[in-house]
């Protein structure tokens, strides 16, 4: 196990895509210390900014980060195997393009966490920022394809955009434009959801266990279902209002909103 701690408080952002189990594997501690990172425009080695120690007795997690990494971007980017634990906050693009393995954040994570992820598991035990599990600007094919993201806290806006597969479980509340343009996959929210969920969606499902601020007029009520399957391990008990949409996109995505927490939606019952 490699343990990394910041040597000082960082002011400007650090890009450290090299903090990645695939890259560390097969390297000696000295080699790891020499890996290149940038702090703003300055080119540094990992050792310039961080204390790095190795504990050969521990196998997993492969890398442990301790301290505030909120300014450190791209931790575990594109990682295929192994496990990273961050005991502190994580910066932007953590676990971007993750293709396997596991990243655990014992703190909050910033925007674009798990962006364009393909496989693997990301657990965030705090809040997650905007654009979690959403792709880079302007791409319609780059959305998260598979894997699981679990957030214990709340998430920001535009989470799970262009989602094409995989599961996002949010134990807190979600901001606007949840699952925007998603075509497949599942998003499950235990608490509340801001307005404009599922806009432009063409497939997949969004399950809201709390209150949804407003259902877009581009969604039409379909039925009331007693329960819904989130994944192999979880069946959410209902009853749920089921909305179909986004009809302006001729979509067949589904929003499940719990009946008991959404009395305002009872007006839709007349269309059933």
């Amino acid at each position, binding site marked *: 196990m490699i343990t990394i701690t910041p040597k000082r408080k960082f002011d400007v952002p650090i890009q450290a895509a090299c903090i990645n189990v695939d890259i560390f594997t097969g390297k000696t501690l000295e080699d790891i210390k020499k890996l290149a990172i940038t702090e703003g425009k300055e080119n540094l080695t990992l050792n310039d900014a961080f204390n790095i120690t190795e504990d050969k007795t521990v196998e997993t997690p492969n890398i442990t980060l301790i301290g505030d990494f909120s300014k450190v971007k791209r931790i575990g980017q594109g990682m295929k195997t192994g496990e990273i634990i961050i005991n502190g906050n994580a910066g932007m693009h953590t676990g971007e393009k993750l293709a396997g393995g596991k990243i655990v954040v014992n703190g909050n994570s910033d925007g*674009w966490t798990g962006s364009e992820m393909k496989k693997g598991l990301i657990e965030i035990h705090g809040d997650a920022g905007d654009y979690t599990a959403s792709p880079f600007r302007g791409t319609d094919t780059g959305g998260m394809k598979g894997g699981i993201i679990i957030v214990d806290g709340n998430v920001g806006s535009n989470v799970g955009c262009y989602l094409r597969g995989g599961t996002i479980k949010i134990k807190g509340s979600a901001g606007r*434009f949840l699952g925007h343009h998603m075509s497949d996959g599942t998003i499950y929210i235990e608490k509340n959801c801001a307005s404009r969920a599922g806009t432009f969606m063409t497939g997949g499902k969004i399950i809201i266990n709390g209150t949804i601020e407003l259902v877009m*007029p581009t969604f039409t009520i379909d039925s009331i279902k007693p329960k819904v399957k989130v994944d192999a391990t979880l069946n959410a008990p209902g009853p749920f209002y089921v909305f179909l949409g986004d009809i302006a996109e001729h979509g067949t995505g589904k929003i499940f909103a719990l009946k008991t927490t959404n009395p305002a939606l009872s007006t839709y019952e007349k269309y059933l």
Partner: protein
Amino acid sequence: MTEIIKSVVCPICGCLCDDLEVTVENNEIVKMKNGCAVCEAKMVHGYKSDERILEPHIRKNGKLVPVSMDEAIYKAAQILTDAKYPLLFGWTSSASETQHVGVELAEELGCALDNCCSVCHGPSVMAIQEIGIPTATLGQIRHRADLLVYWACDPWSAHPRHVERYTAFTDGRFEKSEFKEYVQKLKGKASKKKVEAAIRRTQVRYQPPPRPQTAIVEAPPPTLAKTGRKMIVFDVKKTMTAEVADYFVQVEPNSDYEIFGAMRCLVNDQEIDVDKVGGVPVEYLKEIVDAMVNADFGAIFFGLGLTQSVGRFRNIEIAIAMTRDLNRKTKFVISPMRGHFNVTGANTVFAWQTGYPFALDFSQGYPQYNPGEFTANDLLRRGDNDATLVISADPGAHFPKSSIQNMMKHPLITINPDWNAISRLGDVVFPAQWCGIEQAGTAYRMDSVAISLKKVVEAPKGVPSDEEIIKRILNKVRVIKAQKTRKDVTETKNVENKKI
């Protein structure tokens, strides 16, 4: 000596009206014809106000003191090279020639580069990147549009001649204006403000008598079904533009997205399950959509009311989606009402050099793009940058307080012609020529047509163009960087020598 210069281009808003007639006496603009009130304020009065910066200043012991140009250039270059991650922001009131050098400077520094579009129509650019845009040059709209929709913008205040030059009050080849003659006649003898007042009076004549205003949206007027040019305004509040429109729809704040969604369904002949969206009854929306579908050529213009309210670029995305849907039934275009006269140019110049229109970062040696990560306000909000250069912009007056407070924690360099809010806050303050008055150059109109700005008077002595300042800073940065590398090399050599 009196000289009348024709076809002068107005360097203020994205309309870039190029039919001004400027009278110059003794290197001073004394009169201006054809321009709007804002143009008159700048071209005849503002550019020569007492607020002009005439020499460089550096803040010493908390006070700005005049210094030589060389000293200021050196100081600025030193700040930028010493900083780990500077931000270069502004650019939108500079000529594209200046913006061009700006990209080179950012590349040399490996820093963040952003322009004002991130606080005006950056969201529009981002929406275009998500979904594209059906658009047209303004003349196409003038010649053909029979339905004009202004959504969450008030051209009468922000682009005063937009309606008169490009849309409702102009004569096109295929569509004529009802007001043109009237306005033309008035313009001959009245000043701008009087014309505005007169047009307002015409409205009273041409429109059904105004009904008492309430927050409740009125039903569409029967005129919406007529042939010929029509104008609809959507806004959260009634504006001057709304007063001249055939129909004004007052929407609830932050509900544009839902309204667009509902209208998209209606355009696609789909039923919706609600009766009212954003305060507007669905039956009214149906009539509006009918008018849109029945138009031969429709044009939607939108403003900051969409880009700044909740939803931001998603508002534009859905507006474009609706326009795209309408194109399956008729011809429709949509266009952002770009603010600063060369904000479109900043996007354009940045894009052809780097591939990206704003929100750039060069820290990795190649351009990176991500609004939200490299946009000025996000950098400032998170305190990511450790020096700022502001050129031809006034974030002092247009950024939230907390952003500027973060900016103040680090050195600030400003390049502006006058003592605007940000210049007053600067640590190194440069003077600059007024682009389009004292300096020629290229600007891009809101429909990305390049127009050459004219130089009509000489700048005060010793005041350089911002292009020259940026070039000099760039050269000085290169010199300092070379010195540093030399120093590094000698240091390593010394170390090596000691080893031996």
